[in-house]
């Protein structure tokens, strides 16, 4: 992107920020970071209120805006010890890694499925967080962010947050421990006592998963269970916590159930960047623009809107000012086909020209795959 293009993009962003919904609780207690050439060029900024923040965005218009997950008495103070930490949202960063600039977009549905499981099973189900204390937003590129703002969680330290991540990702999960030790004996009289479907946490989810699999694809556990009689008999036992109503040997049975245990955890939580456990991290401000895509880190309200959300359709900048505008671009590299803004675009070859609606064109420019054709 050359300077002229950058200015053009900034102008479009500024138009969005003038009317964007920027609802940041306790904004005066957060540290902000902004970036133009990197995600964060400068940090230790602070804003007294939303209108100051909006004024900054419309006049300076950075390409990336993030704020601390932490709350401080003096968010702009340096070094960090002087900020006086008072607590922090618990934040999870879900994303997908794929090779190639565009490969991740095809897999965003997988991240969304993980997101829904994270929210329903783990945060609400296991952790007991109230839905009203959850802020969920698209990251603006390859995933989603979840912010827990339940006051009871705010004082947790880094190690304690790490424990939450480990739980969600199933680190150290040993499902064979769900069963009483007697499962290693081969005696016919011994009973294999295990979890029941009504239990909470991993135990209940595991059990329900086994029953579901028995009902849908019994053979993936054992051919024995293709026989409805044997299957139903086995399931009736599981419901009581008795896993021995089968002729399979206990240790054999338990090892065959690994297939269910392997699918219980949420895999796409990004721990590399340490967003959850590092209390000094900054994270993209919900409803601001991701400068590498021109997509909005859209806040999603309610479960229904998460299910319906299609990032490449619903996170585009759609302001009135640019509603009818188009932009001609010249591709500087080959780009695979993509469904963007409800249209199938491409594949494009290097040196190909294309005129599209503004938010679609700037996506390719910001991705570094095209340049603006000035007419």
């Amino acid at each position, binding site marked *: 992107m050359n300077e002229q293009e950058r200015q053009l993009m900034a102008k479009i962003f500024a138009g969005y920020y003038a009317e964007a919904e920027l609802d940041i609780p306790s904004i005066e207690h957060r540290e902000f970071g902004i970036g133009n050439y990197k995600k964060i060029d400068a940090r230790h900024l602070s804003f007294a209120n939303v209108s100051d923040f909006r004024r900054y965005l419309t006049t300076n218009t950075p390409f990336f805006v993030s704020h601390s997950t932490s709350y401080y008495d003096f968010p702009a103070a340096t070094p960090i010890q002087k900020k006086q930490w008072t607590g922090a949202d618990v934040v999870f960063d879900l994303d997908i890694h794929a090779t190639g600039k565009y490969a991740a977009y095809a897999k965003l549905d997988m991240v969304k499925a993980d997101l829904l499981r994270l929210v329903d099973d783990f945060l609400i*189900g*296991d*952790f*007991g*967080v109230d839905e009203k204390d959850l802020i969920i937003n698209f990251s603006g590129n390859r995933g989603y962010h979840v912010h827990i703002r339940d006051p*009871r*969680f705010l*004082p*947790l*330290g880094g*190690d*304690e947050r*790490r*424990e*939450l991540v*480990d*739980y969600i990702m*199933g*680190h*150290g*999960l*040993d499902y064979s*421990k769900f069963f009483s030790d007697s499962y290693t004996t081969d005696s016919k009289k011994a009973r294999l006592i295990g979890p029941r479907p009504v*239990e*909470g*946490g*991993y*135990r*209940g989810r595991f059990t329900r998963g086994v029953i579901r699999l028995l009902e849908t694809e019994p053979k993936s556990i054992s051919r024995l269970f293709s026989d409805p009689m044997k299957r139903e008999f086995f399931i009736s036992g599981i419901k009581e916590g008795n896993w021995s109503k089968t002729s399979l040997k206990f240790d054999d049975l338990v090892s065959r159930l690994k297939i269910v245990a392997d699918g219980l955890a949420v895999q796409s939580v990004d*721990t*590399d960047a340490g967003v959850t456990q590092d209390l000094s991290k900054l994270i993209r401000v919900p409803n601001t623009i991701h400068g590498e895509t021109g997509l909005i880190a859209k806040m999603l309200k309610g479960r229904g809107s998460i299910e319906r959300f299609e990032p490449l359709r619903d996170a585009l900048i759609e302001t009135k000012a640019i509603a009818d505008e188009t932009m001609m671009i010249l591709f500087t590299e080959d780009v695979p086909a993509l469904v963007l803004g409800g249209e199938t675009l491409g594949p494009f070859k290097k040196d190909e020209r294309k005129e599209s609606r503004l938010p679609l064109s700037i996506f390719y420019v910001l991705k570094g795959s095209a340049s603006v054709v000035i007419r």
Partner: protein
Amino acid sequence: MAEQGGLDFAVRYPFSPSAKDAIAGIAVNDRIIILARNRIMKALMNDSSGRMLIHEADKKEDIASFAVARMILGILRNNYLTNTFAVNESKTMDRYLNREDDETAMIVSEIFGISPKPKAGGKGGEESFELDLPTYLRFCPRSPAYRLINRRLIHGMVEIKSNEWKRIVQEAARKHIERIPIVKDPPEELKEAGKKILESLPKTENTKLEAIKVEDHPPCVAKLLESLGKHENLPHQARWYLATYFLSLNTSEDDIVKIFSGAPDYSEKVTRYQVAHIKKKGYSVPSCATVLGYGLCVADCRIGSPLAWHRLGRQRKGEIKR
């Protein structure tokens, strides 16, 4: 067992509000300062026994000695002393707590905001409780049995057994006692008492290890070494891990024993015996998966075994540490 607000309760739990009330208006005298110093020296000897006190005045002085001991620690601001004191005091408290009825134990527990609810229909007659998740996370000991993944957790409540509840309270007490007050304009007598304690400390500089450098080891080991350097209390598995790890690197037993000299409950005799025992039994270093299971993994090295760290190139090591 206890009259909750009473003086005996305050002796057993000198961090409680009733303890504060009991010593309100008492002037610090030489006797109390000596008792306070003894209290710290007792911690240095890992002596967590309680004292049998009969007279009211003795009880009050004993309670006051806890407060004064903390003031002395506040003046010294020496991590080793503070953490050693906190570990020892919380162990002393634990001896009492385990003998209390549930009602009294709950009063102590609630001092730290820990309010477990008795769980209806506990299995096998053993009493169980439910504790809210954030409180559980803040105060549970760092050992595999307490890892969240191994617990029953539903709607933000973690199931705990009665003995685990007491252990969590002990941990909360330790953390509470570790936070020493900042003392402005300390009285000369207390400064003097602090000086005497410092003089009786073994010269830690001499036990410093030249052979072992934190930066040579994988992030998990480095973190544990740093924790020991700050005199933090490491869980059993962490100590075990360090011992097996350094034995595998052919570090001498003497040097390994020295590694642990920073631990707040360090005893050379016990450490030496344990290291020798691990060596004799030939226990091997846990795999990365096991280290993760212990809750000690801090980075994403993807090396399978901590020992594989030493085969990585300099650049890869740098990337991981970033």
